[in-house]
């Protein structure tokens, strides 16, 4: 049930109403959120996001999307803070600051981004195909997808970054095919060490 709820909240987040050439796809797109599975004990922290989490999520990309072409909204929910930037031309950036209340190891992240959870994360797309997966020396991960929605094909890059010991940040860029250079520009600004897997 929670998956459904979070899925719907994701829909809410992504379903901004301003229509544009590519927007119809994004209206029913992005991300739902798998649950973080943890065995809560005394060393675990609360799953409730703090103001610091909110500020971290909102400031992560600094001023990159602070233009009139990008519209920002954000949601604060149990276990995460999510920020959506929607471009007037339908490009999408979506960040999540996910709380792992009992901390995490690489294996936990592997487990989190398993096939089942990708199905949840990308459940609002008509189809998706993982094209590449890579990581750099600092364990920053990048997953590259080709996704379809409303008969439009999009390129998606999905980074996963270990932030602090109980927080993981993910950032997703979704651009229609043909806008690779623009996507590279944003990717390079956010993750210069891992702009792409290629």
């Amino acid at each position: 049930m929670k998956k459904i709820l979070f899925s719907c909240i994701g829909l809410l987040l992504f379903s901004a109403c301003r229509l544009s050439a590519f927007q119809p796809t994004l209206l029913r797109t992005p991300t739902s959120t798998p649950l973080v599975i943890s065995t809560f004990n005394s060393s675990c922290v609360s799953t409730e996001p703090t103001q610091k989490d909110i500020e971290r999520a909102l400031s992560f990309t600094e001023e990159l999307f602070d233009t009139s072409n990008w519209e920002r909204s954000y949601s604060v929910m149990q276990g995460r803070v999510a920020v959506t930037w929607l471009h007037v031309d339908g490009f999408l950036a979506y960040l999540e600051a996910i709380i792992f209340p009992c901390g995490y190891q690489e294996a936990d992240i592997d487990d989190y981004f398993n096939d089942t959870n990708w199905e949840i994360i990308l459940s609002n797309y008509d189809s998706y195909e993982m094209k590449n997966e890579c990581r750099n020396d600092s364990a920053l991960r990048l997953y590259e997808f080709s996704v379809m929605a409303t008969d439009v094909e999009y390129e998606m890059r999905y980074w996963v970054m270990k932030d602090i010991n109980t927080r993981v940040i993910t950032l997703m860029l979704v651009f229609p095919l043909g806008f690779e250079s623009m996507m590279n520009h944003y990717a390079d600004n956010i993750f210069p060490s891992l702009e792409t897997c290629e």
Partner: protein
Amino acid sequence: MKRFLFGLMILFLITACSGNKASTAEIPAQLPPSPEPLSSPLTQIENLPQEVITQEIDQTTCISPAPAQVDIDRALSFAGKLFDTPDWERTYTVDIDKVSVTWYSEGLSSIAYLEALIFPCGYEELDLDYFFNVDNWAIVFGNYQSYEYVDGCRLDSGVRLYQFITVDQGYEYDVHYWVVNDTATRVISMMLVMPIESQAMIDEFSYSLFPQLTEC
């Protein structure tokens, strides 16, 4: 029941998309006609042409539509501690021109949804009549199997209550939807959706939120 809740969240999506109609005039045009014309005096208000509203807007006095921290705090604190129990899980979203808060209870099969709407150029009662018109309800209840307007009323203070019965997956739900003139540029709406058989719970929450206007 689960599909109902899913539908409800989609509803929130759509409600969010309905936004501030004073500034998104294109949205109503995309809506299907309402199956349930209202029969109260609200009907007359709904038929007001939009020009009546737009002509009254003085752009020189408009403020930014972006929510401030005080708007977030106001939205989060509006219901006091009513939903601060393990039954309810809270989510809130800060959009370009509003703050919305959702309290969801799986155990109670219920949802409460608050929006703090910003009218950057202010508003009059007629603006709200227009905003909360049949098209608005068609959006709000677009994912239900059906919805029926039951009643609408308001206090002298301007607090409004709209009551509906909705059906989804064969289950009936009682909907109370209040609208409060909060400040000169802020309107708060609060929606409670609860199983119709849980009348005592509906009454209890309604009284806790709006003791002066629990029902029409």
